[in-house]
């Protein structure tokens, strides 16, 4: 186990796991308390369209998926802001259309495209040094935002109507949260994959919410839990030769079940 840490790609995998878990804890908390899990799911799945676009154009996956999913986030923000009664239909449509676009674009690209499953379910051992830079930059941006604009984020999440009366630009914050969710999905694609990333955003945060008195504690606890699940999942996947992304998600799910059994009250 320990000797594996000498390999560069194992080190990268570990650092990526740590960075993405911390990002997921903060962003996931905001996504969960704003009831945007389905929205984030839509963005995550449709980002496969961005993967397809990147392969079709021959540009780096990170940039293709990044630009595409931010565009999807902007589109969904415009379509769903203050329109709760319509939003699930739109999200469902964007969800499926994005994935379909990815499939078609890859069909139209000649040649071998590598293991496409790895974008869906992650391949953490394929993380490169350069990817870590993007992850660290996003983590720093998220932490700065949360610390400098905590009150606005809290007000907008808890009671948007009142926040708006107090002069907080709620629409701007709504859009920004979706963009953050999109960027989180993009950096998490390699770690857990775009299908499983929703588990990383929602499971640790759901457990954390039960045990937190404030949004900030929820964020810190979610990050810690996500980190724990990711590291445990990585160790297990290495030990038993399993897919890392799926193992991380199953460990998280087991944590959720355990927590639910112990604290039945909620």
């Amino acid at each position, binding site marked *: 186990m320990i000797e594996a840490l000498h390999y560069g790609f194992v080190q990268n995998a570990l650092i990526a796991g740590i960075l993405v878990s911390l990002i997921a804890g903060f962003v996931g908390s905001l996504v969960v*308390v704003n009831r945007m899990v389905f929205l984030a799911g839509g963005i995550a799945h449709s980002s496969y369209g961005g993967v397809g676009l990147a392969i079709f154009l021959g540009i780096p996956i990170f940039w293709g998926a990044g630009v595409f999913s931010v565009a999807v986030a902007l589109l969904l923000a415009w379509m769903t802001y203050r329109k709760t009664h319509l939003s699930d239909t739109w999200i469902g449509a964007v969800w499926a259309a994005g994935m379909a676009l990815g499939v078609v674009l890859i069909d139209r690209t000649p040649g071998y495209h590598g293991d496409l499953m790895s974008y869906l379910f992650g391949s953490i051992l394929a993380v490169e040094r350069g990817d870590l830079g993007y992850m660290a930059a996003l983590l720093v941006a998220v932490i700065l935002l949360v*610390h*400098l*604009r*905590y*009150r606005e984020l*809290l*007000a907008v*999440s*808890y*009671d948007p*109507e*009142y*926040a708006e*009366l*107090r*002069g907080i630009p709620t629409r701007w914050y709504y859009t920004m949260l979706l963009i953050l969710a999109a960027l989180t999905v993009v950096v998490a694609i390699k770690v857990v994959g775009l299908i499983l990333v929703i588990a990383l955003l929602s499971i640790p945060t759901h457990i954390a*919410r039960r045990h*937190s*008195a*404030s*949004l*900030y*504690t*929820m964020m810190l606890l979610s990050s810690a839990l996500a980190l724990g699940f990711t590291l445990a999942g990585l160790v297990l996947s290495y030990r038993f030769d399993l897919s890392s992304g799926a193992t991380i998600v199953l460990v998280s799910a087991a944590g959720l079940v355990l927590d639910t059994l112990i604290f039945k009250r909620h």
Partner: protein
Amino acid sequence: MKAISVHGLRFSYDREPVLHDVDLEVDEHEFVAVIGPNGGGKSTLLRLIMGQLRPDAGEIAIFGAPPRRARDRIGYVPQNTNVNLQFPIRILDVVMMGNPRKHREATRWWERLFSMRYNDVELRCARTTLEKVGLECALDRRIGELSGGQRQRVMIARALCAHPRLLILDEPTSSLDAEGQKQIYSLLRELSRDLTVLVVSHDLSAVTEYADKVVYLNRTAYTHDLRANPIHLHTPEGEHFCEIELMQELAAKTCECEHHRGKGGT
């Protein structure tokens, strides 16, 4: 100067007239209740007074200023406080949402990097307003742990935190039992010694007992001054009184007392 002064107000949604020639005058330190059927324009009137909507015709002045510029002088308590009960938020954090920006000036720049921390001025403000509503010892409790009546008082404290001169409440007791209703109304009665209170309500027995004036709003407004012409409702202890019965009561008295259409007082 009048707290609220509305003249010849007209408003329609998509050419559907909601308010037609509404006149309304509220003096400072008055406790005014707005009643009327659903769809009679009660919430629309509130939104116009708070500057969230603009009138098609007519004038609104809040302490002599247009609504948008009077926002700092208005405290607002929303209708439904039973939403988001799972939200990890303390009473203190909810009250602080009403905290005026000038209190933030007492914070040193390096402390602003942690915007979740409150400075002494802000904490003192929260404590005194929570004292006014009788919840000073619940500072650190989660909002979901409180009863409906306590939660409503937290929302009132949040509105009071900004030191408003006009307090607006939209059906503050719609989800409370008779005892909870009574407590909220006697609290509002007490508060109206220091500020003006405008409350939309269906609780007619409470309205006739506590308010100074009743405004009946159904596209247009009729004001009844309860101080000059008190209405005594004979309701068995703890029972509710239906709106229709008050309407009948008011209609029966129309011949005896003066009902000024629009203009308040007698």
